[in-house]
């Protein structure tokens, strides 16, 4: 491969590392230099620890000289969204509430990355507590889109998408509750995979909505996504919702699983509000699959229109309870004004949480409050079942479903102020979380204004290998991610 290495893929870099073309230390130094150079403009990192990263790189090089290399990720810098715990490192969730919190433990994915020799590099910005889709809700700073600094990188994993797109990491991890991996991936021209709910352990992921949250890889290629997924997936006894699934070798499986496939196009996903440029890019991808001999079928997901309502009830209800632990007692921000413990709660939480977090906690508290449970939460859970059933019914006829990721490409900073308008933007990604399905966002071109766009492939539960293979059939001939931003 050719420099700069910071734009390399895991597949290529692990090859270069193994033949001694480059050392991990050299790679890490390049990534650090690149980060120092562009980070002031992009703002993807909440913090990074250069000395720690260099030490990890040296350790990897030493393993390599001793013939104890741990795998494809050994010596590769991988950035982590700042909601994933790394022992001894800050864990802020981009909230004032946790501005000074240092995690005393590793998330399961962190432990697995470390065991695979990866360098856990940097704490990546997000919408506070993963609530948002623009990374403007960070308590510290907004992250900017590397393809246009005036635009948002998407969110909530905006830091993870922007850092990767800007060459400040070789891969990153994000988390996806309603599209928080896929939407920023589409805004920043990278691959973003939201695995089946339960495939990747949530232990050590700061919870937003427990029944929807899932950690996933953000990478430059689907092959890289397969490599990272293979490391982080798998049953974890520390997460009761972790599913005891067999973990295949995704990387080799995605090359052996072959089409042609039956691909479903849900008519409800191509209606009003879809940007024409996004629509034509997605239609072009559909045309590509047709030329490959795939059968394109129109399918119906009739309850799509209720997804956002159900999502905002379930997600906010769960978040109102999940975020109750941030009370200024054991850790986190504590108001200096409080005279008794009740005031301590009210003031610490008022000072520690940003507007969007407060808004969602209040909504979630409301929908669970006495007398409303059946009308809101219980009904939303039933609608959720109907939405899942829609997908499962569709999968009787098709192997995967192809849709846009977001109705529009990246929007400008400050352009969307109304919360409801922002919530409605999640229309294409939310159903996947409600149904617990795997889905991947794949770069599918640029607008005339030069902004990236993405297509979404939604797969069947625990069949990520097939999903990646289907995506690869498009990506192979449309390697949009190779076009890097000029920063």
């Amino acid at each position, binding site marked *: 491969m050719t420099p700069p290495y910071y734009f390399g893929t895991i597949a290529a870099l692990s090859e270069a590392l193994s033949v001694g073309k480059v050392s991990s230390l050299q790679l890490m130094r390049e990534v650090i230099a690149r980060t120092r150079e562009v980070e002031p403009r992009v703002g993807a990192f909440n913090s990074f620890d250069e000395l720690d990263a260099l030490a990890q790189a040296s350790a990897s090089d030493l393993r390599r000289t001793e013939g104890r290399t741990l795998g494809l990720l050994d010596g590769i810098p991988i950035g982590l969204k700042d909601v994933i715990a790394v022992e001894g490192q800050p864990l802020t969730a981009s909230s004032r509430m946790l501005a*000074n919190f*240092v995690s*005393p433990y590793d998330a399961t994915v962190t432990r697995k990355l470390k065991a695979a020799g990866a360098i856990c590099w940097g704490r990546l910005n997000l919408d506070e507590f993963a609530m948002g889709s623009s990374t403007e809700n960070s308590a510290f700073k907004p992250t900017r889109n590397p393809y246009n600094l005036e635009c948002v990188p998407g969110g909530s994993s905006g830091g993870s998408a922007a850092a990767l797109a800007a060459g400040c990491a070789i891969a990153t991890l994000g988390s996806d509750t309603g599209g928080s991996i896929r939407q920023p991936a589409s805004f920043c021209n990278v691959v973003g995979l939201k695995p*089946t*709910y*339960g495939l990747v352990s949530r232990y050590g992921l700061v919870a937003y909505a427990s*029944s929807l949250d899932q950690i996933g890889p953000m990478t430059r290629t689907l092959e890289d996504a397969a490599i990272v997924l293979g490391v982080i997936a798998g049953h974890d*006894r520390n997460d009761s*919702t972790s*599913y*005891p699934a067999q973990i295949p070798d995704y990387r080799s499986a995605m090359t052996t699983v072959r089409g042609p496939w039956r691909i479903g196009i849900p008519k409800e996903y191509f209606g009003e509000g879809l940007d024409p440029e996004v629509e034509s890019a997605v239609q072009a991808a559909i045309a590509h699959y047709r030329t490959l001999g795939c059968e394109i079928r129109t399918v119906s997901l009739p309850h799509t229109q*209720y997804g*956002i*309502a*159900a999502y*905002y*009830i379930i997600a906010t209800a769960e978040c*109102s309870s999940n975020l*109750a632990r941030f*009370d200024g*007692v*054991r*850790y*986190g*921000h*504590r108001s200096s004004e409080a005279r*008794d*413990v*009740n005031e*301590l709660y*009210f*003031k610490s*939480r*008022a000072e520690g*949480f940003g*507007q969007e977090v*407060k*808004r969602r*906690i*209040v*909504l979630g*508290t*409301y929908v669970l*409050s006495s007398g*409303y449970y059946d009308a*809101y939460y*219980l009904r939303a*859970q*039933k*609608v*959720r*079942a*109907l939405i*899942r059933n829609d997908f499962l019914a569709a999968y009787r006829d098709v192997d995967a479903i192809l849709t846009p990721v977001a109705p529009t490409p990246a929007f400008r900073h400050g352009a969307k102020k*109304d*919360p*409801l308008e922002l*919530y409605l933007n999640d229309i294409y990604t939310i159903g996947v979380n409600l*149904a*617990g399905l795997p889905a991947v966002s794949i770069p599918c071109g640029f607008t005339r204004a030069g902004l990236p766009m993405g297509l979404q492939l939604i797969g069947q539960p625990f069949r990520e290998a097939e999903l990646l293979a289907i995506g690869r059939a498009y990506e192979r001939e449309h390697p949009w991610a190779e076009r890097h931003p000029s920063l």
Partner: protein
Amino acid sequence: MSSEPNINIEHIATLARIALTDDEKRIFASQLGDVLAYIEKLREVDVSGVEPMAHAFPVFNVWIEDVSGPALPVEAVLRNAPASRDNMISVPKVVE
């Protein structure tokens, strides 16, 4: 669900233990009113006979046998604590 959702923001903020400014109360009440009005959509859906979905892929009886693991050292317990003494977390006096 009433046809015109009316949020008692004061009461809800108390349950959530968040001190809201008057401005916040006003803005939130109106924004949440919009969201709740939107959520009213769900009333259209026929959910009779539908089992509520609490988990994407429910598995029964997920547990661990009764074997103990390590404790967090007390220094680590207190390192992130805003205030502590005598190895305990200190809070302003609790009034019933």
